């Protein structure tokens, strides 16, 4: 172990003194420093922060991948071409120890660079978080959709079995079933059971699409389960700026982070007394109490300037994207949203007009979820005008979901950076491996190709997929089989890109991280390193070709 550590230390020092590494480090630093200044996003504060996180993660992964590839190859290939390896191999150091030491040295460099990049990115994100938001909903988006880690739950899938059976029965009644089956029999190359299966799948698809569209005045009902909000209420202090207890209302100035957790008409506790947020504006909010509560001595003693303890319930969000074949001139789709706690009957409803074909988020109190993690959401498609003119609206099951906070931003950010680290560890293993038998430029080319194949693995798998129902040329089979080999040998590095998680404030699950670690490093990284050790052990280091 001490020998491996000696090589690791030496590799780390070598990388720090290599000019190529220094150049990349400077580039990364400049990129990260420029991003928060130049990136405006959609103009909102949440948009700016999302853009920063997205580009910041992307640039960090890109630059560090390049640094990793160049340095991991250079430390081995240059040792061989520069013959320094003669001296090292003459020492009591097993070849596998050399390979492992080199890899660990690069991994150590990656860890250091990644920590620097992550700290910079985090600092800039926090700096932007402290900037003024456009409006309360912008602040809410910053606090509940970006600086959060949330889990997403999809609604129960629509049950269309009955509709499918009815439609098949109707086709049979109308005597059209045999004709329909005949069309599929051709595609199934005469296989009757396969033809029947294909027809049923087609009908199932049609019916699923049908139930995901509603006409004017009609609505969807989605049922969700397994929503386990673990976030405690946000607590803080505020300063009373106006008192009108005859109307049962207080106006309070509060910290932006506390305001970010509040939702219009959502519950709040002031000095332990339940109230409802009736107005959000800048750094202020107004809270309304029930008349009997407004007369309690805890509230009646309050004066402008008094400090009060505040507690805000956790929230959930409903994310959706609505589409319509026809929209009004302003491209807005009016709708009524109703959310019900099926156990307590707590009910929330909101009338909204949302831009079509865009993802929107509805934030509401977590009281709409019962203790068993269930909630019901109803969407009613409203007409554009009072004359009843409207449009049929489609919301796919995959386009609607409930998001709920399960943790803070920091832990999620660290896990997101760990995903990038997995990618770098694999690339370092690849670089060290090809560096043992290829020259520097050729090795770089190979590892960059591996990187591209690994990132685009899903796309390539789709592109080379073979449809058994269509005649396929031999060349396509070769591509398909080659892709199968790649699928096994290479990890899917698109899974280690954390931008999507951070931009949407989505939780990077430990289980996900573990799975990716096992797949990327535990399996493939170890395989690549073992290959490197084998090649390097069997290689004549002083071989000359004549």
């Amino acid at each position, binding site marked *: 172990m*001490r*020998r491996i*550590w*000696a*090589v690791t*230390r*030496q590799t780390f*020092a*070598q990388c720090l*003194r*290599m000019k190529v590494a220094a150049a990349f480090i400077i580039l990364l630093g400049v990129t990260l420093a420029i991003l928060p200044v130049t990136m405006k996003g959609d103009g909102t504060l949440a948009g700016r922060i999302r853009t920063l996180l997205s580009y910041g993660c992307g640039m960090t992964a890109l630059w560090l991948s390049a640094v990793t590839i160049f340095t991991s190859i250079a430390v081995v290939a240059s040792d061989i071409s*520069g*013959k*320094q390896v*003669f*001296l*090292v*191999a*003459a*020492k*009591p*150091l*097993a070849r596998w120890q050399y390979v492992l030491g080199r890899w660990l040295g690069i991994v150590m460099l990656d860890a250091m660079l990644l920590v620097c990049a992550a700290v910079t990115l985090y600092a800039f994100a926090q700096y932007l978080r402290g900037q003024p938001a456009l409006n309360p909903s912008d602040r809410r988006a910053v606090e509940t959709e970006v600086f959060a880690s949330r889990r997403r739950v999809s609604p129960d899938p629509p049950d269309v079995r009955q509709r499918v059976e009815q439609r098949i029965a109707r086709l049979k009644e109308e005597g059209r079933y045999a004709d329909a089956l005949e069309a599929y029999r051709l595609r199934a190359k005469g296989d009757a059971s396969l033809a029947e299966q294909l027809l049923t799948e087609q009908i199932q698809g049609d019916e699923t699409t049908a139930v995901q569209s509603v006409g004017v005045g009609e609505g969807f009902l989605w049922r969700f389960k397994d929503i386990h909000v673990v976030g405690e209420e946000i607590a803080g202090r505020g300063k009373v700026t106006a008192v009108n207890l005859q109307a049962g209302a207080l106006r309070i100035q509060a910290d932006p982070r506390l305001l970010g957790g509040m939702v219009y008409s959502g519950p709040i506790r002031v000095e332990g007394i339940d109230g409802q947020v009736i107005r959000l504006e800048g750094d202020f909010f107004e809270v309304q109490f029930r008349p009997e509560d407004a007369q309690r001595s805890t509230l009646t003693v309050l004066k402008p300037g008094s400090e009060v303890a505040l507690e805000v319930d956790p929230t959930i969000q409903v994310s959706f994207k609505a589409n319509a074949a026809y929209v009004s001139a302003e491209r807005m789709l009016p709708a009524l949203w109703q959310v019900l706690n099926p156990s307590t009957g707590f009910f929330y409803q909101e009338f909204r007009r949302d831009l079509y074909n865009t993802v929107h988020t509805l934030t509401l109190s977590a009281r709409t979820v019962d203790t068993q993690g269930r909630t019901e959401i109803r969407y009613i498609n409203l007409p554009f005008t009072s004359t009843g003119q409207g449009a049929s609206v489609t919301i796919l099951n995959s386009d609607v979901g409930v998001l709920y906070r399960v943790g803070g931003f920091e832990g999620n950010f660290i896990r997101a950076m760990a995903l990038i680290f997995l990618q770098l560890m694999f690339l370092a293993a690849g670089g060290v491996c090809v560096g043992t038998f290829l020259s520097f430029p050729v090795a770089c080319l190979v590892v960059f190709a591996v990187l591209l194949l690994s990132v685009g693995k899903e796309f390539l798998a789709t592109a080379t997929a073979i449809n058994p129902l269509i005649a396929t040329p031999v060349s396509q089979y070769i591509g398909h089989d080659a892709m199968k080999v790649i699928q096994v040998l290479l990890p899917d590095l698109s899974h280690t890109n954390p931008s999507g998680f951070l931009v949407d404030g989505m939780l990077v699950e430990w289980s996900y991280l573990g799975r990716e670690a096992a797949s990327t490093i535990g399996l493939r990284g170890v395989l690549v390193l073992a290959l490197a050790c084998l090649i390097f052990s069997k290689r*004549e*280091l*002083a*071989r*000359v*070709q*004549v």
Partner: protein
Amino acid sequence: MAETNGAVVATRRLTKVFRDFWLREKVTAVADLNLDIRPGEVFGLLGPNGSGKSTTIKMILGLLFPTRGTISVFGRLPTDVAIKSRIGFLPEESYLYPFLDARETLDFYGRLFRQPRRQRHRRIDMLLEMVGLGSVAYRRVGEYSKGMQRRIGLAQALINDPDLLILDEPTSGMDPIGTRQFKDLIETLGLRGKTVILSSHLLADVEDVCDRVCILYGGRQRAEGDIADLLVRRGLTQITTQQLDEPTLEALRRQLAAAGKTIVDVTSPHDKLESLFLRIVQEAQDQRLATGGALAGGRMAEFLRGQAPEGRGEKILQQLVAAAEVSPPAAGAAPQAPSSAPSPSQTRQSVLEELLGKDKDQGRGPGQGRGKKTPPSQEP
């Protein structure tokens, strides 16, 4: 595995053929080489460029694999990592990491031998002083001249006090002072029972230090044997005496003629240019003239002379010896017989052996005697 007969390095019909891209045999670098390099021997590999010297050395080190034949080092395969802890290697070029300074370089290689920190640092100090680079120890090796790089290369080869030292063209790029020190070092190591393989085409260097040589040409062994046997010109006798005048010479000629012999050559012996050079440089250094390069090396590192009190034991030893040297004899104490009273140096040596005996023999195989020849008396 070759039958080693106790040899440190043994080769049997060792052959190395280099191939082209299509794996066709193109160059036979070494052919049917049989060598037995014995413990404590300073062995010279001689030959012109391309004769197979470096290829042989690379096979001994496991950097190249034999095409045919066998090779064993300390009775094991050259690729066996365990034997590497007993080998020191100075390649034909220095092949050092240019971004490390001299101290970092030696520290790195010392770590590969798993040397304890204190011992490693002590050896580094001694080696840097020995090779005359103590004053530039924090300059990056990439900034060194070739000769300075050779010196640091030599230091790294000695960091583990190797039992087998392999030197490939060791004096190339080195100034005459370094060369002289080099030869002194090899002599000392030879006297300590270390095995040295010296590959060179500088015949004078080899002649000065080697016990046995093997001359290679075209990858084949052309001659092998004790250097004295190979170089002796049988049938001639040389007498060196004070300068003779003409009448004396004439008298000698007559006497030899009476014995049926003739004088083949009469000359005055010349000083070696190396000796003249060393004298001039020594004078310059005595006058402390400025130089930005390597200084003449210091004394040979103690651990290489086999006298190194290293690590924990050293302080205790110094205290013990100092006490023995300073303490006056007690009043009235009976004078001891000279034969039974150990001298300070004997005391020191015995305590050293007791304290460090095991450490000194670390890594040495059984039956590898250290004292085949008597080390020179070099009290620190």
